[in-house]
């Protein structure tokens, strides 16, 4: 079902954990849908020095969180914001169709953490929107054609 990369990131998640006194924390998703992601950021000079995550969710949710943190580590905030859910999925050698929403969740969690960082530091980042309440709203998965 999952690619080897997904399984690797699921079983050996990178950057799993918390950051005490993080510069930014974002939590997205909800328990109703079965996945919640939280991302912690340590930012210095606009660069993501450290990043950690915690995830309640399926294998893909864990793996996308792990991959997303890998992709943004050491990047500037602007670079981090350019990383799309598609990039996360691609870096994992793809996701099953039903699991694409997990990669979206990872993107949203990252944005939420950056938003928090920006809020706390009075920075305005163009194009960055406040985290949505429930990122699943827009999706409907039935393949009626």
């Amino acid at each position: 079902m999952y690619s080897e990369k997904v399984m690797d990131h699921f079983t050996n998640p990178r950057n799993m954990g918390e950051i005490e006194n993080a510069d930014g924390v974002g939590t997205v998703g909800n328990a109703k849908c079965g996945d919640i992601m939280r991302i912690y950021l340590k930012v210095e000079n606009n660069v993501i020095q450290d990043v950690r995550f915690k995830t309640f969710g399926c294998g893909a949710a864990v793996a996308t969180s792990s991959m997303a943190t890998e992709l943004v580590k050491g990047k500037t905030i602007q670079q981090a914001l350019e990383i799309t859910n598609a990039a996360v999925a691609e870096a994992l050698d793809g996701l099953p169709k039903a699991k694409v929403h997990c990669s979206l969740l990872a993107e949203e969690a990252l944005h939420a953490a950056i938003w928090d960082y920006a809020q706390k530091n009075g920075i305005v980042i163009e194009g960055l929107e406040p985290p949505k309440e429930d990122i699943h709203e827009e999706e409907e998965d039935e393949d009626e054609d």
Partner: protein
Amino acid sequence: MKETIYLDHAATTPVKQEVLEAMLPFFTESFGNPSSIYSFAQDSKQALEEARETIAKGIGALDREIYFTGSGTEADNWAIKGVAESYRSKGNHIITSKVEHHAVLHACEYLEKNGFEVTYLDVDADGIVDLEQLKSSIKDTTILITIMFANNEIGTVQPIREIGRIAKERGVLFHTDAVQAIGHVPVDVNDLGVDLLSISGHKFYGPKGVGVLYARKTVKLKAFIHGGGQERGRRGGTENVPGIVGMAKAMELALADMEEESARQRELRDYVKERILEKVPYARLNGHPEKRLPNNVNISFRFIEGESLLIMLDMKGICASSGSACTSGSLDPSHVLLAIGLPHEIAHGSLRISLGESSTREDMDTLVEALVPIVEKLRAMSPLYEDFVKNNG
């Protein structure tokens, strides 16, 4: 490769060697169409009728009340849509429960779109339907009560005899989906007052793709799949002779040692349940503690999600199931777990193990040993657990 510990017998079972052997001649040798008149086809015809007899006897029915189908799902659909059609002039109200299998629920929802009214009975925290609500839901237009025998997720066994009595008193037909019950608990249609009953072969070591609808001879049963004159003109299609023979053999074998084997599995069930609840904090048993299938354990682990749990168990060679939506690609967790009142995040973290004839005490120990660190690992990753610890620590 490590050995597989298969603990998902509620999903499906292997075909037993004896069952396969009973089937084999009907694929390549005695392959005649039972409807043909030449003597070569008599073997198939006879095997078909013997299978019908075996199954009839197994549930206390008459031979002519047994109709072979292509699955348990077809039997459920036929029973519900068939009664709806035949008795429409009498009424358009059907009563079911919130914890039925999708085969029943979706058939009912289909009928709702076609002018029927359906009442979905609540269940209590153990998953038992509310009999008072049942009684008060019956009205003049009620034509069918369809309540499952035993739940496929949480194992709760419904008070079928009581429901049968209520149905009879009120002159309403009673269908029960007994797919999970057959081979585990005694089923006698007359004793229980059941008018229609669904069976699926692959849940008791028979083959997939074959099932039974029992319909009491007094039930006006219209065809659902129209075609040739098979099954007394009520279910068209060349009979799946090997499948039917296999299912009958499997039922015969299952009933032969049911008492003993169920007792054995019940003991294992209680053993593993105790061990898990003892070793893993923040865990709860779902389903009724006693009125449950002898082979079903369903436990929710707070703060973690079921699919991750299953994948990690799978990596240890353990096959199990979950009520988490993530296993099905949908977003809502099991309607059954929600119906017994679990909040979403707890429903997502459920594990179902269903034992079988191959299950041993060592398997239980292996499971528990594997489970404890997995739950710990997943909790360490969980933002929900983090919040819980912070708020309660």
